[in-house]
C-alpha cells in the first residue's frame, strides 16, 4: 500500500479527480495548502505599496492505492496536472504500514 501525495495547481484539481475516478481509483482527501518551490512567490500591489506573497495557494491530494496501482495513478496525476509552466507542483509516494476502515474495522488492503 502506498500513499500518493500530490501538490498541484488548484485549477487542475477537477481534472485530476475525474481522471483518477475514470481509472477506478476511488477516494481521495483534498486540502487547500500554500507553499513555494521554484515558482517562488508573487508580488501584489495595494494602494501603490508592494507586498511579496511567498506562499502561493495549491491543492494537496492524498490518494491511498494498492502497490499495483501506483504507476497508473502517478501517470494519471502527472498528465492531468501538467500545464508545462513553472509551478505545476510535485508528487510524493510513501509506504503505508496499516489502513483501517473505521466503519467495518477492515484492515490492510481490504480497507483501501
Amino acid at each position: 500500500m502506498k500513499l500518493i501525495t500530490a501538490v498541484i495547481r488548484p485549477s487542475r484539481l477537477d481534472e485530476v479527480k475525474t481522471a483518477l475516478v475514470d481509472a477506478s481509483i476511488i477516494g481521495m482527501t483534498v486540502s487547500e495548502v500554500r507553499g513555494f518551490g521554484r515558482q517562488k512567490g508573487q508580488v501584489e500591489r495595494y494602494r501603490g505599496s508592494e507586498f511579496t506573497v511567498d506562499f502561493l495557494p495549491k491543492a494537496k491530494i492524498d490518494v491511498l492505492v494498492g502497490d499495483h496501482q501506483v504507476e497508473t495513478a502517478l501517470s494519471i496525476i502527472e498528465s492531468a496536472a501538467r500545464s508545462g509552466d513553472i509551478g505545476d507542483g510535485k508528487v510524493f509516494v510513501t509506504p503505508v504500514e496499516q489502513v483501517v476502515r473505521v466503519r467495518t474495522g477492515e484492515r490492510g488492503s481490504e480497507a483501501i
Partner: protein
Amino acid sequence: MSLQSSFSTRVRRPSVGFPPSAIQTVANWRQKQFGLLQALRNTSTMQRSGVMLLAAGAGLLPMMAGAANAALAPGKTDGADTLLMLIGSALVLLMTPGLAFFYGGFTRAKNVLNTMMMSFFLMGLIGVVWVVIGYSLSFDSGFKSPFIGGLGQMWLNGVGGELGDAALAPGFNISASSFALFQGMFAIITPALISGALVERINFKAWFWFSLLWSLFIYCPMAKMVWGGGYIGPFGEIGAIDFAGGTVVHIAAGVAALVSAAIVGPRTGWPSGKRPPHNVPFILLGAGLLWFGWFGFNGASYFAAKGAGFSFVATTFSASAALLTWCLIEWFRDGKPTAVGAATGVVAGLVGITPAAGFVYLPQAFLIGVAASAACYIAVQVKMGIKFDDSLDAFAVHGVGGTVGALLTGLLAVPALVPADYFPKSAEILARSGNLGLFVAHIKAVLISYGFVGIGTAIILWIVGAVVGLRVTPQEEERGLDFVSHGEEGYEPMTY
C-alpha cells in the same frame, strides 16, 4: 449678528414668531427653486431660483435659521422635502456599515470583527449620544456662543413641535425632526472614519471613551461652528461654506486620524510585518455602499426635493471622475488598475465633492473629483514613503481629500449658487473679492479646523490614555483583536 438667535427657538414653538409678512408662500418659493436647467439657460433668473435652495443644502440651514433672514419665507413643512430627509437619513446610516466593510476588508483576518465593530458600535453609542445631547450641543443656541450650542434641545425636546412635523426654519421646508435625524447619521459616521488610523492595536475600551468624548467635544462644536450659525460658517466671522461636511466630517475625522495615529503609534512590527488586505471584495462592497449612501449625505443636504437632483449628479459625477483618475494613475505607473485603487478613488472623489456638491456645476465637480483623487493618491504614497502608520489612510483620504475639496470649493464656488439669503457672509465675500476672497476664507476655516481638532484630539487621547490606556499589548496584537476584544473570531472554518 443674529448668530445666536436660534432657529431652534422657532422650531420648538412653531406657532410663534413667524412674521405674518412672511406669508410669501412656500409655493411661490418652491416655484423659484425649479430647475437648474432653466437657471443654466437664464443666468439672471438663476440668482434667486433653485440655486438658493442648493446652497441651502449644505446643512447650512441651521445657520440661516439663526439669521432669521427676512428674505426667506417662513418654513412650512413640505412632504416631499421631508421625505427626502428621511430617505437621506437611511442612506447615510447605511454608510456606517459600508465603512465597516470597507475598513474590515483592509485588515488582517484576525482583526476583521474588531475593525468592523469600531464603526458598527458607534451606531449604538453615538446614536444615543446624539439624541440625548449631541444635537442640542450642535444646533441649539442656549449658550449664545458661536462655538457650541446649548442644552435646550436635549432628548430632541421640542424639535419638530408637538407632532414632530414643524418646519425647521424660515426658508427650510423640511421638518425639524427629520433634520435632527439626518444630522445624527453624520455624527455617527464621523468618528467611525477615524478608526481607520487606529485599527489592529487600539484597546476597545479606549475606543469607546475616545469616540464618546470626541463626538461631544470636537464634533458637536465643529457642527455648531460650521453649520449651526457659528464662527466658521456663512453667518459667522469667517464665512466659509461647507455643503455636506468637507470640514465638519472629513477634515475633522482626517486630522483626528493623523493626530491619533501619531500618538497611539504604529502597529507592532509595522511596516516590515505589513500584510495585504485580507478581503478585497469587502472593500468593494463597502465602497459601493458608501457611494450609495453618499447620495443621501450630499444629495439630501440640499434639503429640498425638487432641486436636489443637481447635488446628486455632482456627487456621483465627481466619484466617477475620481475612480477613473485613480485607476488611470495606477495603470500608467504600475501597469495595472487595481480594485482597491478603484474603491479608494471613489471614496476620495466623494470626500472631495462633499463641501462643494451644491455650490458648483458639473465641470467644477469633475475637476474636484480628479484633483481629490490625485492628491489622495500622492498622500498615500507619501505616507508609505515616510513610514507613518495611518493604517487605512484615514488622513490620506479623508483629511487630504476634505482639505482639497474645501479649498477648491472656495476657488470654484459659483456665486449664483451662494445666495445672500442663505449665506450672507459668504455671498458678501464673493461679491467683494470674488472666489479668491472665498478661497482665503476657506484657508482660514481649514486652519482653524486643523488647529481645533488637532489639539482637542490630542487632549482627549491623553486623558483616555491616562485613564484606561490606549493600546492592547503586543501579545494581544499578535493573537488578534477579534478574540482579545470581543471573544469572537471572524472566520472559524473548522466549526461545523
